[in-house]
């Protein structure tokens, strides 16, 4: 199926540029590291599920420059993301925000786990050979048994 991925990832590319270009890189290595990390959270708007850090599209470059601009202006990581989401919408985030409307997405795993654990506990307990009182021989049965064995 990767072949389709491959087709799509690059067939939308209009201008052959080259992911992060040398002239984009910030002089301050700490700011640049933050910019790279943020770039991996942001989607290239015209690509198929590709982040702006690795995208070749022109709009991805614009976004990368915008991220760096905000960071240089002194914004925090969250402020930078907010700034971009305000302009481009939630669509630009590769990791949707944990809000009430996205609750199902984030809780799908934990909920399935809880339900699954419930089922498993139920199943395993039914399969567990518990020594129940009803399984033990009553006094009368013990007596009867010894009588039979004595015969």
């Amino acid at each position, binding site marked *: *199926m*990767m*072949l*389709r*991925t*491959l*087709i*799509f*990832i*690059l*067939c939308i590319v209009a201008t*052959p*540029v*080259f*992911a*992060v*270009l*040398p*002239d984009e*890189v910030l002089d301050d290595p700490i700011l640049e590291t933050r910019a790279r990390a943020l770039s*991996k*959270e942001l*989607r290239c708007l015209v690509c*198929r*599920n*590709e*982040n702006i850090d*690795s995208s070749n599209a022109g709009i991805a470059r614009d976004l990368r420059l915008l991220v760096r601009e905000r960071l240089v202006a002194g914004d925090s990581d969250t402020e930078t993301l907010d700034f971009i989401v305000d302009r481009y*919408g*939630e*669509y*630009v*985030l*590769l*990791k*949707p925000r944990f809000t009430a*409307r*996205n609750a*199902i*997405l*984030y809780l*799908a*795993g934990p909920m*399935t*786990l809880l339900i*699954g*654990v419930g089922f*498993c506990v139920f*199943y*395993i*307990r039914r*399969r*567990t*050979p518990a020594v129940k009182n009803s399984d033990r021989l009553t006094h009368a049965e013990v007596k009867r048994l010894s009588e039979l064995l004595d015969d």
Partner: protein
Amino acid sequence: MIAEIGHFAVLLAFAIALVQSVIPLIGAQKNWSGWMRLGDSAALSQFVLVAISFGALTYSFVVSDFSLQLVAGNSHSAKPMLYKITGVWGNHEGSMLLWILILVFYGALVALFGRNLPAALKARVLAVQSMISTAFLAFLIFTSNPFTRLANPPLDGNDLNPLLQDPGLAFHPPFLYLGYVGLSMSFSFAVAALIEGRVDAAWARWVRPWTLLAWITLSIGIGLGSWWAYYELGWGGWWFWDPVENASFMPWLIAAALLHSAVVVEKRDALKAWTILLAILAFSFSLIGTFIVRSGVITSVHAFANDPERGVFILAILTIAIGGALTLFAARAGQMRTNAVFSVFSRESGLILNNLLLVVATAVVFFGTIWPLIAELTSGRKLSVGAPFFETAFTPFMVVLCLALPIGAILPWKRAVIATSFKHLRGALALSVALGVLVWSLQTGGRMLAPFGLALAAWLVLGAILDLLLRARYTAGTPSETLRRLRKLPRSDWGKAVAHAGLGFLVFGIAAITAWEQEDIRTVGIGDRFALGQYEFVFNGVEKTNGPNYSAQTARVTAYRNGAKIGEMFPEKRFYPVQNMPTTEAAIHSNLFRDVYISLGEDRDGQVWAMHTYIKPFIAWIWIGTIVMALGGCLSLTDRRYRIASAARPKRAITPQPAQ
């Protein structure tokens, strides 16, 4: 003419598939042996016919018959022969024909090698298998005919997408389809068992090799795809959490769960209904994957409108197959009771935990993949779910799985004594933690990922070794006796340990590359030197070269490590004129410890070039791990028991002939 023969052959195959879906099923119900036996010859003829059709299409690509719409749209006379052939499945119609070819290939295998299956079970399996091929042959014939002719053939074709002109295309899709489609066997066996209403250890032994085969080929297919993307896309990513990748990953996860639960059915006659459900789910995810890939509905919500017919058709197949199988399951699952007993701490419970975690992980991937669609349909919001989400939501479950794996693997069946099991694991645990601490103290950055990841990998590998030693009862007797017993262990024991160690290697590779990758971006001119980590590079300029159907700019970079030359590297930029498309061909210097990865970017006035250089520590272990896992599967597949199991049941295989 050749193409018409191919076209006619698929039509004929479709007719036979229809018959094979019905007659053997009735035969099995009424115990008419002739009707049941029809399944064998029908399955073989389906395979022969689809193979003829596939051969005809391949021939048309090889001779560049541009009067076929498909060839004109996806091939070019100047394309190298290898890519003319692989181009057969480098497009929707051709890959669908390959999909069907593999489907009927599995059917033919059952007909040929399933001689020892009970006649009724075999007939039902073949009928169910044929229902699937009927549906997909109809899909091919009515919506995606590869043999459509053009009234005015062009002089030359449109060529194949340059990214696909790679040896990767020769192996990646066939292996992936062998896996995807192989799960149809588990599905058919499950549905047949539901119709019969009987699931026993023998059934599990028959279905396990097929699932194993599908899982092995799917592992190889996914691994190849990941490797291909790594060297072809030019920035060295190896997994993208792309919907299409997820589409192949979900059946893999479920197939892994199915393999483990089938062991419980085989050994302990428990978890029967669950195993049947997993077999249905595994193939359902294959179908969902096919739907995701072919309809374009998830990748881009608008693509559905481009080709509503195909999407709706697969959706219909999907609904009928999954709905039908689950309905049958709901009706019959109650009959599958078990008397097996086991305690909370036992191999059985360990395998249940394995199943639980794999299914939960699949649920995370599934919801993540379809969430953009759900959000848009329910509230009109457009949003994206990509790698950062999956890394957060998926990883914890896998970590728990890896932590629990070595413990579960050595627990005895029925009832384990915790203290004993823990005593065996103490050494492995201590060594793993020690390794983690060592890595933590050696590394400069403060990230916990590498120490933890490496400790986890060591835990898995040591656990696998311990598992083998325990099987060989190393505590009893001398080392040479242990060695002798090790050699005598059944292949499936070796397979299990090898596959688990392979997972350890994979975890090691992922942790190392994620924590320690180094990267450099710069512009370079001729003669420039630059350093990255322990490595130094000299850029010697760019030469123009020509390939058969592309022109290229090839750079020559000399790489040194601590002053010693390790080699010349040739990153390349290609341009394919027919498709008007550039590609990057990274130069990779690879060994077990690291890859040096260079890709060449744009030039400015032919004087300086953009250049991306990466040091990727231990990345090869990601694929080594995958291959070792697949190898473990192969070892299990060749276990004597499965061969004996297929031969040792002649008594039940003979069905009484009805008096006529």
